[in-house]
């Protein structure tokens, strides 16, 4: 119990639950199955986007290419299925492989050249987006496989089918960080790079795996999203940047690395999706969404810090991340 309240996202979840119950009682539309499905569908997408960022934050790096990879994978799957007439299974596998390769490229450059992920992925993300626009001439592929549409828009009452891959992925990532040697190596390098080096942990391989995994998850998020819009456009991912950071940070991922709370990501995704929905249900100006996301990052981080200081004293966790990912020699 103590452990639950010590987590950064606990106060947020509690506040959201209370707000949700109050809203559900106050406006009868909020609690309908369709509305809850709407929130959960967005939650699943946000959670996938956030996980993609979280696995690189775990190694104290970051990726600005999540959206770029998603755009490229979206048009690859859409084009291979719709234009090249590949079977849908093959098109999806090729799309996921492409995401993995994009992530590997990022990881290779970052690990081999000893660079910060920020600037590398800013560059490669722009390049991936550029390829997506170049290949399609900005025209979306509209022949979307029915199976992806049923995945993206299918539901059993309030339960969006997208939750299945999102939850499976969260569990797999959470378990991987906990039990797989490479997962623990990523956390070790993220937590304290110098110590990990001294302990002989292969930090280059860890960096490579973290970025490859991020690319793969971004590709999965893209495949999940194709059916939601029922259109494969290169613009997919163009607005994922802030969400990709907001979800893991609100979910309690320490930016100093060494931490990967997949469950927290899920809670944060739920909160952000609910806010998106509530603003429209209550007929508030949708421009406020953008502002709310920014403010929520602060609210979550500050409330999480308060909760943590109540829960347990944690020395050495408050160190600010040197923005470029290196504090200099």
């Amino acid at each position, binding site marked *: 119990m103590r452990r639950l309240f010590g987590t950064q996202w606990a106060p947020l979840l509690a506040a959201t639950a209370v707000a949700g119950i109050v809203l559900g009682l106050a406006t009868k539309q909020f609690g309908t199955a369709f509305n809850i499905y709407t929130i959960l569908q967005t939650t699943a997408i946000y959670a996938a986007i956030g996980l993609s960022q979280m696995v690189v934050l775990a190694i104290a790096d970051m990726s600005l290419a999540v959206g770029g990879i998603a755009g490229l994978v979206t048009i690859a799957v859409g084009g291979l299925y719709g234009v090249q007439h590949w079977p849908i299974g093959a098109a999806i596998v090729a799309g996921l492989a492409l995401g993995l390769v994009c992530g590997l490229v990022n990881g290779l450059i970052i690990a081999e050249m000893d660079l910060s992920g920020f600037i590398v992925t800013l560059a490669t993300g722009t390049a991936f987006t550029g390829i997506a626009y170049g290949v399609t001439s900005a025209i979306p592929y509209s022949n979307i496989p029915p199976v992806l549409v049923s995945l993206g828009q299918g539901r059993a009452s309030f339960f969006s089918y997208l939750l299945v891959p999102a939850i499976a992925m969260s569990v797999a990532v959470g378990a991987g960080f906990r039990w797989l040697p490479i997962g623990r190596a990523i956390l070790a390098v993220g937590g304290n790079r110098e110590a990990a080096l001294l302990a002989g942990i292969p930090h280059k391989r860890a960096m490579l795996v973290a970025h490859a995994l991020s690319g793969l998850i971004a590709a999965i998020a893209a495949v999940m999203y194709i059916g939601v819009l029922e259109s494969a456009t290169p613009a997919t991912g163009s607005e994922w940047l802030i969400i990709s950071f907001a979800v893991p940070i609100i979910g309690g991922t320490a930016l100093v690395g060494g931490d990967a709370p997949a469950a927290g990501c899920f809670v944060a995704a739920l909160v952000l999706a609910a806010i998106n929905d509530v603003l429209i249900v209550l*007929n508030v100006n949708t421009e406020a969404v953008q502002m709310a996301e920014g403010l929520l990052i602060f609210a979550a981080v500050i409330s999480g810090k308060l909760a943590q200081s109540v829960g347990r004293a944690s020395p050495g966790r408050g160190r600010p991340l040197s923005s470029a990912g290196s504090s200099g020699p």
Partner: protein
Amino acid sequence: MKRSIQSRRGRLATRLFATAVLGLGVAAMAAGMVAPAVAATTLPKSKIKIALVPGGPNVYFAPWAEAAKAASKVLGVTVSYVVPPTPTFQPSVEMSTVDSLVAKGYNAFAIFPDGEASIVPLYNRLKARGIPIIDLAGCTSDPTPAVLCFGTNVEASAKYQTEVLTRAMGGKGKIGFLTGLLTDANTVLREQGVKAGVAETNGAVELAQIVSNIDSPSAAPPAVESLLASKGSELTGMLATDYYPSVAAASILSKNAQFRHILFIGQDNDPTVMSALLSHAIYGTMLQNPYGQGIVAAHLLYKMLKDGCTVNPNAPFTKMGNTSRFINSGYLFVSQDLAKQYSGTMASIPAVTDKVLGETDKILSCP
């Protein structure tokens, strides 16, 4: 000419060792002395190079590419479709693209202006070189060097769309309105059009909710779903004036029969929208005429360069909010009955295109 290039290159080289900024500044000054090419009153076909420049990479403009090819074939001159590399329609990128095209020898332009005033200084520079410009699909504000503006009357189109919808709703009920960025001038015009259409019902139809800023792939689907979740039971009509909300609404209404009591009219003929229309999941969609925009603009520019025509001040212009020289490129309500005819084709309204081409001698006065 050749000597001046060599001397310029030489000067650039000698400056490499001087302070960098100053050196490049001097090179730029030297380059500035090259005399601009002044357009003659009439040009042979081989000298005519027309460019259609959209606002940025966007599916709406795709028919311009086909129009450029078709016009090039018919007219026997270069007609190119060149997209400024700015998905967010940044005026500065568009200006730099146009400048590059001028440097390449293009001497007539049809441009979708990324800012109604931002691009006017560029137009002034083009005009000073005798290069004619047509505003295409969007207008610059008067006073503008653009000879005319040819595009969809978005306000009238949105008003008509609303009128068709309210009529279908039996003249009463509630409407939800899905639209794009508030910072886009067209969004404001569309909203005015919808409000004017609703006002005609004298309060019998209510504009229950406006959801703006959702013309993006990630924002449209959840916003449409949230609107349906909260107001789905009370709404009897829904409108979208932008691409992504139309696609999202068409897709969601196809999958959720419980909202079929809502009559929806979307925008453009994306395959997702057309298949929803064919299956009667939505009530209709508004078609624009981007193909005709490209064809007409290329023809007018061609005549201006080839025969030295100028714009007739007494041409059949419409007065619009920001310009007095507007010609409507047309809009069309595509009902379920017409769906087959307009599916799988690029957006084009041939009747309007032919009508405007037939009026060329009224629009231009030729020597």
